[in-house]
């Protein structure tokens, strides 16, 4: 059996980041006199970070392949602009516009991917060009001004909540019972999954974590899920966008850990030549990875537009940096082959909590940037330090 200390040593990155996140949350909870963990703010936190998390899923895959995508902020803007122009100026049905936007996102991804994968131009350059091109197109499309507002249905993409089928209340205040129910189901599902994995490991005679650790871990996860559900339920319940995030995170966690395509992406990032000589069609895989990024960036573009209720020329400005930082804070390696969805998620939340907490405290945008930069540097320093210690 693995001892707790070796377990911690092997996963020091994941646990380290999680501890950092909790520490930052506790710090801001005190500094903001409890505002941070208020139901309305927690909901806000989710809404504010939904686009960073959405794009982090795609960016993580790109970083694992060993490349980077600098264009995502501009793609967010151009997709938002297109949606605005089509819906507001030309009165196109918003559902159709969503479909068109996602397709266009795929096309933009394919554009970048083609240059990187088949014409072998470094992604840094290709996507830097894309960043300029799509920002320019955004301003042209919008003629330099904001376009809005959007119809209710479109706005609901990011500001809607799932309805409460029970119409519940607690202490005479509305209380979203459906949310609690979903929380309970999710907790049971997570425990069941973990138990199944453990059983499988035992069946094949692999080392498992000690039972008490398993129990404590599951209690902690359940407590977190239920606490979160409770906070959500006391406000308006689960935002629709959270459902989308949940689906995306589950999907990409699965892709990276258990799918053939995920395994091949890691192999390509770890050693492109060896992967190619093992029969992996590396250019095509890289091409797909960029298409995937394009679709996710356009999804984020729609969420941003819906949330602002208008398309603005500088939407998504600098967002690529938050997304990339989330991946690196989450332990992805700039040289490729390394990175986890859960890490990117924790990284995105860490950045989100920093943004949110400092904004509540009234810290100016200037110092916010300084703090985020320092955190990024410290996280990577922590990585390097660990690596050297183990070597």
């Amino acid at each position, binding site marked *: 059996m693995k001892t707790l200390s070796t377990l911690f040593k092997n996963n020091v990155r994941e646990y380290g980041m999680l501890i950092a996140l909790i520490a930052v949350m506790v710090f801001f909870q005190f500094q903001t006199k409890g505002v941070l963990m208020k139901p309305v703010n927690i909901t806000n936190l989710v809404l504010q970070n939904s686009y960073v998390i959405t794009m982090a899923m795609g960016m993580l895959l790109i970083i694992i392949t060993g490349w980077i995508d600098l264009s995502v902020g501009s793609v967010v803007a151009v997709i938002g602009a297109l949606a605005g122009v089509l819906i507001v100026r030309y009165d196109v049905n918003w559902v159709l516009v969503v479909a068109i936007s996602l397709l266009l996102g795929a096309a933009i991804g394919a554009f970048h991917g083609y240059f990187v994968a088949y014409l072998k131009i470094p992604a840094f350059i290709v996507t830097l060009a894309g960043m300029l091109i799509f920002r320019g197109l955004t301003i042209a499309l919008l003629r330099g001004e904001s376009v809005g507002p959007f119809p209710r249905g479109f706005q609901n993409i990011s500001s809607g909540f799932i309805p409460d089928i029970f119409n519940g209340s607690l202490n005479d205040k509305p209380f979203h019972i459906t949310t609690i129910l979903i929380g309970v189901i999710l907790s049971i599902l997570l425990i069941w999954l973990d138990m199944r994995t453990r059983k499988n490991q035992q069946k094949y005679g692999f080392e498992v974590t000690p039972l008490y650790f398993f129990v404590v871990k599951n209690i902690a996860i359940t407590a977190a899920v239920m606490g979160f559900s409770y906070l959500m339920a006391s406000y308006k319940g689960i935002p629709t966008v959270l459902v989308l995030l949940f689906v995306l995170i589950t999907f990409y966690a699965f892709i990276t850990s258990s799918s053939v395509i995920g395994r091949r992406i890691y192999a390509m990032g770890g050693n492109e030549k060896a992967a190619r*000589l093992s029969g992996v069609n590396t250019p095509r895989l890289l091409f797909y990875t960029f298409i995937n990024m394009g679709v996710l960036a356009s999804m984020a573009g729609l969420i941003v537009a819906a949330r602002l209720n208008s398309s603005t020329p500088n939407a998504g400005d600098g967002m690529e940096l938050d997304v990339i930082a989330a991946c690196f804070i989450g332990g992805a390696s700039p040289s490729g082959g390394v990175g986890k969805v859960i890490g990117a998620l924790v990284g995105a939340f860490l950045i989100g909590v920093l943004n949110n907490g400092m904004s509540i405290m009234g810290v100016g945008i200037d110092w916010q940037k300084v703090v985020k930069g320092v955190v990024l540097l410290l996280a990577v320093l922590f990585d390097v330090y660990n690596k050297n210690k183990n070597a």
Partner: protein
Amino acid sequence: MSDVILEMRNITKTFPGVKALNNVSFSVAQGEIHALVGENGAGKSTLMKVLSGIYPYGTYDGEIYFQGKECRFRDITESEKVGLVIIHQELALIPFLSVAENLFLGNERAKNGIIDWNESISKTAELLERVGLHESPNTLITNMGVGKQQLVEIAKALAKEVKLLILDEPTASLNENDSEKLLELLLQFKEHGISSILISHKLSEVNKVADSITILRDGSTIETLDCRKDNITEDRIIRGMVGRDLTHRFPPREKNIGEVIFEVQDWNVYHPIHEDRKVSTNVNITVRKGEVVGVAGLMGAGRTELAMSIFGRAYGTRISGNAYRNGKEVDISTIDKAISNGIAYATEDRKAYGLVLIQEVKNNITLANLEEISNNQVINEPQEMKVTSEYRDKLNIKCSSIQQLALNLSGGNQQKVVLSKWLFASPEILILDEPTRGIDVGAKYEIYTIINRLANEGKGIILISSELPEILGVCDRIYIMRDGKIVGEMPASEASQEKVMKYIMTQQEVVEQ
């Protein structure tokens, strides 16, 4: 002559959990060539890293005396200052800098931070002359062959006024011709009073130039043999290295050769960058069921290029020719198609082309055949674990677990992981490119055993090797390549080293371009 230039006393170096060196003592006399031999993992490289200050003073126990003075090197610059220069297995030259720039890197001929190019160039020319390399000081490293790069490394050591030169596997990637030159050079240096430590797996070389041989095994000194007094045979050295007699260096195999299973006809390949340069010309090759076919030739004869171009056009452009499997023409135009047509190619460069070093052993083994362990694109992890554990046991891969990173395995075990990967893809035709390069005698024997087993299972094997004894000892039939052409073919029973060498060397241009 018997003045001692270097003495290392009771060196002990421990890594977490492993004692890499245990009380090793080692001394080198003034003006001798001292060979250091031992299996992979015996501690040769560790000992040299201690000596050159890569492992600084304080991280090991024991004492080092150089020219009678105790040395406590804190880093490599300190050891170089006293004239101790190490040349690593992997060359440390900057590809896009010129010879002159590389020679004086970190040691620039400069006044007040401004490089004196005239002095640098003329000094470079002088040093190149000393190592017998006729190249302009302005040639970029990337435009030179490995053999010449090795000479540049040595010239670089001379620039530092070397007194004791340490060469770690200097001939591992050189052909016989270049190896010969390099060894000659060492002998010349000896005349000029420069001592050398030579780490090598090639015992014939060791025998040729070494004045004494120290054998390391499992982190301890086993013995030091004096070649000037006694006549030391290769078998004698091997006995010391492995601690047992290796009566057969090549395991015997009962031959059971069937009909032709794979054939390549009129194969032509051009260089990927210099498109008018032909790297394979009208090559015809056949492989029979249960047959081991050797491909002999010098480095640069086009053997790897031929193999890779057959393996899904992984190398070259404007490839033409036909491939037949069991008499029927097959499409092997992509690696994917080549694999599904039963061809596998295990690369000569396992670190760069064979393994994803930062990944687990099990991920490496299954990479070429993920379909086998997945349903609908979802990997069945328990099955993967089971399959890879089987290969670990079958090929005797020494790893702490199948989840250990490939990075942390020794060369021989890494090679076995590469082999496992291709065996798991269950090919019919297996091309092995230098499968025993840089691995120790014991592991080599194991690889030969695996080759025999595969042949017995009815697979066709193409073995590319630069070691003639290996080709002669393992193969049934031998092709000889020169300048991208097959210039000879003979059954192994009729072949001898001299005969094959004659084919290899005839019309070989003496002056390289």
